[in-house]
């Protein structure tokens, strides 16, 4: 049963009903990113060099590709949610806001797909 008036519903007032999921996924990805980003940073810093072969063998080695894919997924999701809120809060002109939100969504999808593709390409070539 809804306590909202029919007029309020057709006017599109009130909650869009997805605020909690946005808030919650921002936190879930934040918690996941604490170990993932620290693992990434210290793995990267412990590499002896950053030449082509060293980097590729690290990306493809053992659990690295698994954690790298998780890192890219969590990062792009967290970043998409965060940038969405920033755009919603600071861009007030409706067409610019909608355009910026669409651009952000598409760029984050491209980043996620490209990142996963690159990691898998390197990891599967290494086996």
């Amino acid at each position: 049963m809804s306590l909202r008036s029919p007029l309020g519903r057709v006017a599109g007032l009130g909650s869009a009903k997805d605020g909690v999921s946005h808030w919650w996924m921002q936190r879930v990805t934040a918690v996941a990113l604490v170990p993932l980003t620290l693992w990434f940073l210290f793995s990267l810093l412990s590499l002896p060099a950053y030449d082509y072969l060293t980097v590729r063998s690290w990306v493809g080695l053992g659990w690295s590709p698994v954690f790298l894919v998780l890192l890219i997924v969590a990062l792009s999701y967290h970043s998409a949610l965060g940038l969405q809120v920033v755009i919603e809060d600071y861009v007030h002109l409706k067409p610019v806001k909608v355009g910026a939100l669409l651009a952000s969504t598409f760029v984050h999808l491209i980043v996620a797909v490209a990142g996963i593709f690159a990691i898998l390409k390197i990891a599967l070539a290494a086996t």
Partner: protein
Amino acid sequence: MRQRPLSPHLSVYRFMYTMAMSIAHRISGVVLTAGLLVLTWWLMAAATGPAAYAGATRLLGAGLVQVLLAGWLVAFVYHLCNGIRHLTWDVGFGLEKHEARRSAAVTLGAIVVIALMLLYLAFFARGAA
């Protein structure tokens, strides 16, 4: 759609450094989003081949880009430490004004120490990164 007043009403509050930390969290987040683009581009270069990777290495090794990388490292440390502070609020701790100010000071101290350590590890302990 009817225009209705929206929070936050920033202009009615006296400025506090906790407000600066709040907006810096968003700024560091946006900066890190740009870093994510570079990370993906670097991974794609490594997946594409030696020539593409050599081009990426040349660009990442440039002086100005090294400064940017250092900036991303600092932004990461800030967003990580202040993000953990946010998560403690989310589970209900430290929401009183004096507690938020104390956690701000503790977080800032941690950020300075950790950022300096990581900058040393990344840029000085091993030569050029």
